[in-house]
């Protein structure tokens, strides 16, 4: 029997919260019966709890407001409100691919799935930053440390290929957190104000993939892995143009490939 052990403060709480082991019940009750001050304390705690439950309990019986229904949460989370869309995009970029990549890397996956997962993350980032009027980038193209900085962060020599033949001008770049490591985003802008991004992250796999096409609404993306870097080109979903852009990027990196490989 543990009956004779002294009553602790924790046991008094457990008594009020119905968490006291049965074999201590009698001891606590005996203690309270001879300690009126303690009994008053316990009564006060019980009454607090009752009042809290009484005051807030009914909230759980109210009908659930429309905006808190799961279906509506899903719609909202997918970007109806920009603020949430941004939070969601960041969450997706940071965490969203983790599940995929976690699964990918656990053996189910292959380069193709990795490329597609990265494409989705890149599309989310693309969506997020092309909408930015004032701060689409962190470092402007004119600043000469742009490439040096992003290359160092990503851990691989990066380039910002000349896409003038596609009417695209480099605005600059920014660094993004990504589950696969620091991710560089280069943003280009065309004459019509359309924006195209190139995201680059180090690939753990040395494998290569062909271009994988991904479309999400009006945004299209081509993803591939080559030479230890995963690339995603995202922009307005004109497949042909993005194909040409992707080939320009591919070619720019190939130029230096003898040194790399």
């Amino acid at each position, binding site marked *: 029997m543990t009956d004779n052990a002294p009553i602790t403060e924790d046991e008094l709480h457990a008594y009020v919260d119905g968490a006291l082991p049965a074999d201590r019940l009698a001891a606590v009750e005996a203690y309270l019966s001879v300690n009126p001050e303690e009994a008053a304390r316990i009564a006060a705690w019980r009454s607090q709890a009752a009042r809290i439950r009484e005051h*807030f309990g009914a909230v759980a019986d109210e009908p659930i407001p429309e905006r808190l229904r799961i279906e509506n949460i899903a719609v909202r989370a997918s*970007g109806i409100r920009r603020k*949430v869309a941004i939070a969601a995009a960041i969450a997706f970029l940071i965490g969203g691919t983790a599940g995929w990549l*976690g699964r990918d890397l656990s053996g189910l996956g292959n380069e193709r799935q990795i490329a597609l997962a990265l494409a989705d993350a890149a599309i989310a980032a693309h969506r997020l930053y092309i909408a930015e009027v004032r701060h689409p980038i962190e470092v402007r193209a004119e600043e000469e440390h742009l490439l040096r900085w992003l290359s160092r962060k990503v851990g691989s020599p990066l380039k910002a290929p000349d896409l003038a033949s596609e009417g695209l001008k480099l605005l600059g770049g920014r660094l993004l957190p990504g589950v696969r490591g620091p991710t560089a985003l280069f943003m280009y802008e065309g004459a019509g104000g359309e924006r195209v991004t190139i995201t680059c992250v180090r690939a753990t796999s040395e494998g290569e993939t062909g271009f994988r096409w991904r479309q999400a609404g009006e945004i299209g993306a081509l993803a591939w892995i080559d030479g230890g870097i995963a690339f995603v080109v995202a922009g307005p979903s004109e497949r042909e143009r993005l194909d040409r852009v992707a080939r320009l990027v591919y070619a720019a990196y190939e130029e230096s490939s003898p040194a790399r490989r």
Partner: protein
Amino acid sequence: MGALTFAMELDMTSVRRGLEPLIPALRRFARALARNSEAADDLVQDTLVRALRAEHLFHGGDLRTWLFTILLNLDRNRRRGLSRRPVLAVIEDVDPAAAPASDGSGRDIERGLALLPAEQREVLLLVTLEGLSYREAAEIQGVPIGTVMSRLSRARSALRAHLEGEMPQLRRVQ
């Protein structure tokens, strides 16, 4: 609707079913934390969005505990975001005419809760309102059970003092 919706579809399948029945309790808990019902439902909404987005981070375990953890983190962010008014300014929000010292309604319990330090209020509500175990409360707050017990103890004495008219918290402002 794009990459996000695509991800949502993946995320929702498994956790979604589990979330729905927990919404009433989340609302109740949020209401007690935030007092203002709009702010409380905002908190629940953000919690649900976060949960759906981060489903893959949920590796088994108790869904309810996980949701309360998210909700409390968001609530801390929310409070940090509020203007840095002293905590006791909350008292001024209560119309004294509408709030007799003890009217038997919930107003004094609300006020009493509002005067507690956040981590004490959280423990007290998790345990008394939501019926969570001490272990679950400890998990949610990311502290040892001993810390939960001492927070609970302090919360109960302070609330008792408040409800019995001693209002020791008020001395601090004077």
